[in-house]
């Protein structure tokens, strides 16, 4: 990568695996679980968070020297809330059904701990470009988990991806359904999101023993 120095690309790559915001830092789980029953809302959510985090990190890092530390939480909340209102209004204008589907969870990006966590831990202490990369990197790490969970839940739960019937038609018994496959309706229900994330954590920590807690 010519554009990014080694240190900068580390900012993007680290959160994807070994410092993943969801599975390692334990941030931003609320929204990660609630909207992952299908792939499409998962991706929309990931993109929204990426926008809010990227821009928010830049804004905070530009203002970091003039924010009094006592009121920084309120300042951060206002910045995030403004950005989230933009996302919400854009979604309402261009993808109304989707924004209904996501219901309150777009609004809950405001209290998504990933965003506040990265503001506190990174943007308040680093320059603009690096903060931007950090925001994008963490949003990517968040998005990856969302997409993995959404993929499995939609595939196993309703046999579709993005609404296309990839496993055949359950009513006409084509594809996999012809040999007796049934959709696992459980995957669509909320509790399975938790269990899928639990399994992701399990797989990740078995591959990298350093991450194991005692």
């Amino acid at each position: 990568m010519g554009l990014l120095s080694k240190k900068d690309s580390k900012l993007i790559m680290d959160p994807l695996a070994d410092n993943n915001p969801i599975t390692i830092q334990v941030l931003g789980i609320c929204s990660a679980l609630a909207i992952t029953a299908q792939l499409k809302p998962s991706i929309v959510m990931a993109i929204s968070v990426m926008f809010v985090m990227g821009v928010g990190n830049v804004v905070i890092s530009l203002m970091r020297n003039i924010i009094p530390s006592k009121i920084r939480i309120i300042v951060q909340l206002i910045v995030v809330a403004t950005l989230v209102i933009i996302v919400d209004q854009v979604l309402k204008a261009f993808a109304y059904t989707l924004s209904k589907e996501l219901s309150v969870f777009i609004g809950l990006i405001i209290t998504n701990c990933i965003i506040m966590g990265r503001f506190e831990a990174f943007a308040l202490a680093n320059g603009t470009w690096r903060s931007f990369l950090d925001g994008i990197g963490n949003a990517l790490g968040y998005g990856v988990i969302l997409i993995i969970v959404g993929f499995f839940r939609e595939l196993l739960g309703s046999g579709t991806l993005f609404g296309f019937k990839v496993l055949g038609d359950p009513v006409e018994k084509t594809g996999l359904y012809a040999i007796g496959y049934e959709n696992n309706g459980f995957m669509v229900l909320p509790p399975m999101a938790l269990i899928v994330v639990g399994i992701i954590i399990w797989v990740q920590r078995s591959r990298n023993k350093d991450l194991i807690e005692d």
Partner: protein
Amino acid sequence: MEHIELFFKSVFVDNMVFAYFLGMCSYLAVSKKVSTAVGLGAAVIFVLAITVPLNWLLDQYLLQEGALTWLGEEYADYDLSFLSFIMFIATIATMVQLVEIIVEKFSPSLYNSLGIFLPLIAVNCAILGGSLFMQSREIETLGLALNYGIASGIGWFLAILAIAAIREKIRYSNVPAPLRGLGITFIITGLMAIGFMSFGGMLTGGEDEATEESREDTVGMVSTTDTANTIKETDLSLETKEGTNKQ
């Protein structure tokens, strides 16, 4: 009647943690010990009980479409609901700050034991989620909004209390190493969420057979998790079921 129904619905059926995953970050971070879990849970109940009715007032008299009619006829068409995120979060941040000051003044020991978690309530999604659900479900009166706030707080409190008790015990069991800590907590929460789903038929006027089934489910859950706390919780749930049967 309406109040009782809303109360049980918010505590069990629409439980903040198990049905909507709200406030998961602090739920996972603070649930290592029962004592801190109780402190945070109580603070969440308190803040929800204040902010939901306050935000209800804001929503009714400032933000909703036509809410500004009390200012005069010419304001009747205004719809400020796009501002609700920023107004709600401002109310919440202010209230949390206020609670912090009050607690510090009157009970320094509680203040010290809560430590960093008190300000963190401001970014607990359960709090903002309470207000947003209050708005999207169009709760009708101030009393119901207060009820909704307290009940969802109690639901969150129950959830964090149960998981903290389980985590205290599970330390002594032989969990596969990569699953220790976070992983097993996720999976237990998932199992508890499945258990709580059985409350679903409680208020929908489900058939008698359906309630029987769900009762068996909850009992099954207890035998697998096997903690004093969940048993207590099922007792509670059975009581509430009897309560609703009387209705």
